């Protein structure tokens, strides 16, 4: 099946209007030697058959809704209002709001999102979203390099390894240098920065879960004229001191924990917020409040001169399509919870994670590697490779023990808990791990 409305008669009538008689004639200007390849694709399916196929594929996956996996994506509870509102066709099927008069819905929602991200991060301005946390980090660093006109970057090993990989890819392309500072005892080691360094990057809580004290890094970075790019889980900002308050210049991270499903890692969205002085360097879309000719308040895309469609090869980024709907889901989520609700979610996650850590670390052969204090994730050393343990747990219907790359040590695994876990869930994991390690 396809979704075209045309009846055979209509096709003929429309062709006739063009003086044609056959759809093939519409492709007469294509080189004949490459025309009409036979595509080898499976036979078409009606909706019913397609959805049964997809259901059978879905049945080949185990749900991770109770997973203890972590690393920038986690199974938080999503209030029912979030998908109900975001599935409205007007939000789902609109394009980028280039025509503001008929796009106030999306525009105002972005404006409100920008405000919430600024509030959470304690910084001045947020854009409308980026792809994910990793590409947001890369954009944040490029921004800092543009601003400082320097070409070296220092990153703490505490930053998510996949984020650092993405950063390395982006930096290699523009010929910038990336230096990594290893963790010491699970925390970012003190460092000094020379005047080639334009951006200094740390993550807090770091990849192993530990809460860092970023003051000295930030002071050192600023002393050398570098800007600080601060990677953080936005949910942690319900309780923890925000990047702006620590003195960071740029905050980035992945928004999944805010009302977005895990989606096997995508879509989700990257957020970025900066101090006012960096506004003109900020990549991506921005919405500003303004007035219409009748004096009514309204919203428009603003400062487009930074963007690719105006500035082309001199744009601040190539980003066009971003992750708008995912970001709006976060806005609805934040609106539904409010500050107290968000703090409650974070507190529940912290409490469950701490309870889980205490229980797991008490098992023989397991060692808590993350120094305290930690937030809602922590790292354990296992008596066996984490991937093996994870696979064994998965056979028991338990999704846990994210393998931590070897650069951090042997047999390390990341665990996390959220407000979605009951005490029974924690117990099941404990029993499962005992069994697997027995």
């Amino acid at each position, binding site marked *: 099946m396809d*979704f*075209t409305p045309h009846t055979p008669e209509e*096709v003929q009538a*429309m062709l006739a209007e063009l003086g044609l008689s056959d*759809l093939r004639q519409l*492709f007469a200007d294509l080189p004949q030697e*490459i025309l009409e*390849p036979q595509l080898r*694709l*499976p036979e*078409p399916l009606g*909706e019913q058959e*397609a959805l049964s196929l997809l*259901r059978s*594929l879905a049945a080949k996956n185990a749900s*991770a*809704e109770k997973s203890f996996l972590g690393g920038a994506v986690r199974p938080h*509870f999503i209030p029912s*209002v979030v998908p109900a509102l975001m599935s*409205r*066709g*007007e*939000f*789902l099927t609109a*394009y980028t709001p280039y*025509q503001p*008069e*008929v796009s106030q*819905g999306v525009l105002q929602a972005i404006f*409100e999102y920008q405000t919430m991200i600024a509030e*959470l991060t304690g910084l001045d301005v947020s854009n409308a*979203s980026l792809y994910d946390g990793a*590409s947001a980090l890369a954009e944040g660093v490029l921004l800092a390099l543009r601003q400082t006109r320097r070409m070296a970057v220092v990153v703490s090993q505490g930053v998510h390894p996949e984020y650092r990989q993405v950063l390395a890819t982006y930096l290699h*392309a523009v010929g910038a240098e990336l230096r990594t500072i290893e963790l010491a005892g699970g925390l970012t080691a003190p460092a000094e920065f020379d005047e080639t360094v334009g951006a200094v990057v740390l993550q807090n809580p770091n990849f192993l879960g530990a809460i860092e004290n970023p003051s000295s890094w930030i002071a050192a970075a600023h002393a050398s004229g570098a800007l600080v790019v601060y990677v953080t889980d936005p949910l942690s900002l*319900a309780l*923890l001191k925000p990047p702006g308050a620590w003195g960071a210049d740029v905050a980035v991270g992945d928004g999944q924990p805010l009302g977005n*499903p895990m*989606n*096997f890692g*995508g*879509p989700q969205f990257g957020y970025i917020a900066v101090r006012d002085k960096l506004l003109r360097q900020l990549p991506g*879309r921005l919405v*500003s409040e303004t007035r*219409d000719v009748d004096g009514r*308040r309204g919203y*428009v895309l603003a400062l487009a001169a930074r963007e*690719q469609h105006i500035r082309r*090869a001199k*744009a601040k980024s*190539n980003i*066009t*399509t971003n992750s*708008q709907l995912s970001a709006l889901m976060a806005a609805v989520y934040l609106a*539904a919870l409010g500050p107290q609700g968000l703090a409650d979610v974070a507190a529940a996650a912290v409490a469950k994670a701490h309870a889980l850590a205490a229980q797991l670390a008490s098992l023989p052969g397991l060692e808590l590697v993350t120094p305290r*204090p930690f*937030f809602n994730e922590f790292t354990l050393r296992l008596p066996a490779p984490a991937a093996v343990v994870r*696979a064994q747990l*998965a056979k028991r219907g338990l*999704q846990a023990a994210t393998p931590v790359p070897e650069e951090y040590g042997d047999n390390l695994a990341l665990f996390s808990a959220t*407000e979605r876990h009951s005490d029974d869930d924690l117990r099941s994991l404990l029993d499962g791990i005992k069994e697997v390690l027995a």
Partner: protein
Amino acid sequence: MKGDFPTLFERSRSGRRGTRPPSVGDVDLAAMLGADNMRSEPARLPELDELSVVRHYTNLSRRQVGVDTSFYPLGSCTMKYNPRASEAAAALFTELHPYQDPESVQGALQIIYELQEYLAEITGMDAVTLQPAAGAHGELTGMMLIRAYHESRGEGEQRRVVLVPDSAHGSNPASSMMAGFVVREIPSGADGEVDLNELRAALGPEVAAIMLTNPNTLGLFERKILELIDAAHQQGVQLYYDGANLNAIMGWARPGDMGFDVIHLNLHKTFSTPHGGGGPGSGPVGAKAHLAPFLPVPTVKREGERYLFDYDRPQTIGRMRSFYGNFGVMVRAYTYIRMLGAAGLKRSSALAVLNANYLRKKLKDAGYIIPHDRLCKHEFVAQPPAGLHALDVAKALLDYGYHPPTIYFPLIVKEALMIEPTETESQETLDEYVTVMAEIARRGQEDPDWISHTPYSTPVRRLDEVSANRHPRLRWKPEE
């Protein structure tokens, strides 16, 4: 009776609560987190009851149009119907964690694997990565592949220039720049196609790649494409295909067969996943065999009955994104391809092209100027009749319930109205649209004052963009 529409923050009341998470009882957060690490005051998020949240967003959506509400012929964006079946399909895969044991996500990996295969088949490429999150991200990935390829041949330092037609989408030069290249523009010929002589002249040992979209942004198929690519290849230049316009040629021609070396696709355009007000999308990249070693990791491969992540690509450019890309968007595109099959894709492109040509013909009859009036593909560029501005025509359309075309793009046509009807619109929708366009032309010429003040019936009218750019207000703040 239209007034200002309050923000969430203005609807907020101190102490009001919405949905309540499970209570954790008495926990000493300061002890667990370290008192010095704690936030001194809560983030000033809005405090709302649940009904207020529902009403706010419901009414916001009523101040918004989409494909679901109206004809939306936004050129270059392929605003076709987004099947609800694909949404239902995607909802089956939301509760998967990217770090799950691969044995527990075999269905998801199968979808990734098969979608890689389908897209390779549809485009005529040898290998596909689904990692890029959008078209521009795909461009960047693709250009990095080209960079890595030249580097691998010791030509990395030498080949720094990318040729881009002056009709190209802005993301093309921007992506080239981010991939470390220098951009040189190639002028289009009078016929709206790349000027082959200009291009030949521009080719040389410093040129790394040419970025093209075909049909180009005027909706015209580059008829000399085989010759052009041949000329470039002879000089060691790689050909990049911007797949934003693939909706014109599915099943009719493949970029790979034309000779392109690397392409990106926009699943949110050609494969009908919704645009979501600006994203998320997905920008898979396809490459010919000589570029495949450089693709980002991981991709997914098949061994017997099992699907595995493939990290074994020592020459990879690295990673472009965390995890595996926008999987939820992939599921939608996969569902779409499975529903349409080869025949449905081919028919969709044919009818997209039919609709565009029909509209081109009819709009010309209605007095609009068609600067390149020949067989177009899925879209075409028109200009308003003498004395009218593209912007005014666009704004007038709003009063008639239509989303306007893309305006002032491509940059090479003055007062451009770039119109892409897509295949999911019916003949009568096109006819009604032409009637309205004709009326706007007539009325606008008779009454310039009327058209320059359109729209009249929208939730807000023309907005002051100048002051928004001079004095941007990018976040809500309480009145001082």
